[in-house]
């Protein structure tokens, strides 16, 4: 994560609603809406 406040769009995860920023739209998302978890 670069900025931590929603500016850099570096922490996005794919969801039913498009890419969400985990730092400001999360950090907890409803599991059913998350489309894929990037491999660690």
């Amino acid at each position, binding site marked *: 994560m670069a900025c931590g406040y929603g500016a850099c769009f*570096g922490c996005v995860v794919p969801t039913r609603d498009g890419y969400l920023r985990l730092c400001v739209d999360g950090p907890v998302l409803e599991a059913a809406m998350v489309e894929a978890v990037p491999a660690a």
Partner: protein
Amino acid sequence: VSTTFCGIELEHPIVNASGTFDAIAAHRAFGDALLERFPFAAFVSKTVTEAPRQGNPPPRLWEAPAGLINSIGLPNKGLAGYLANDLPLLARLPVPLIVNVMGFTRDQVATLVAAFAERDEVAALELNVSCPNVESGLVMGADPDETAALVRRARPLTTKPLIVKLTPNAAEPAAVALAAQEAGADAVSLINTLKGMALHPRTGEPWLGGRTGGVSGPAIRAVALAQVADVAARVEIPIVGMGGVVSGRDADALLQAGATLVAVGTESFRDPLAGARVAAELRKLRAIGAADAPVAAPAGPLG
């Protein structure tokens, strides 16, 4: 250290690099104190494209030695979304607004420039030329003729200052800068990120979803200084210098190399108030005289 840039009066010469500071998100996170003590003398907004963009697939970031590789992919709401949602909020900032635009064709760039030309909230436009022209297949900013053709197309559409954001991924950035000047650009800004890559430590596949990304941060500071000096030797229009600036001394170096303004980029991710700190350090440096200032630059974790 007040400065005039293309006829715009600025309190100091420190601005943000496009895409590295989000005034709306920062206001949401830090409140009205941000507007009272805004860290930059002008605000350069994130690249706007004609159509909305989701951006590149994750992962989008990789920490490099003394820097960052990003493959964000210019997510934005598109021209209509920007005009409806972002512009009214950005118009309330206490500093002039510079809008950065990018198109995949000259027509798209023309549409964007014409749309912003009639908005009083916008002080100047910055053309992001670090993308391929889908009609010619050439990265617009990598080629002097492509850049000149683009600027010639945009120039008659607005009386606002036109800044061309040069890419360092060109054979000769100074030749591109000269072509931009001859085609009517009012200023150039440089450097954008350098193309870079990181591999997944286990699979050996590219780490970034976009395969390659742009390297920024202190790792590219020396490249920025050399390119700004080269461009300053070739053009007469003002230069916005950027690349790895984390301190007043770094900003001072770019000013001495020929820049009129200096942008802070990646450092704002580490410290959203970095712009204010760099401006204060520059003010102090200028007050005591660079020759008498301590030699060691204040180094952050990335410094």
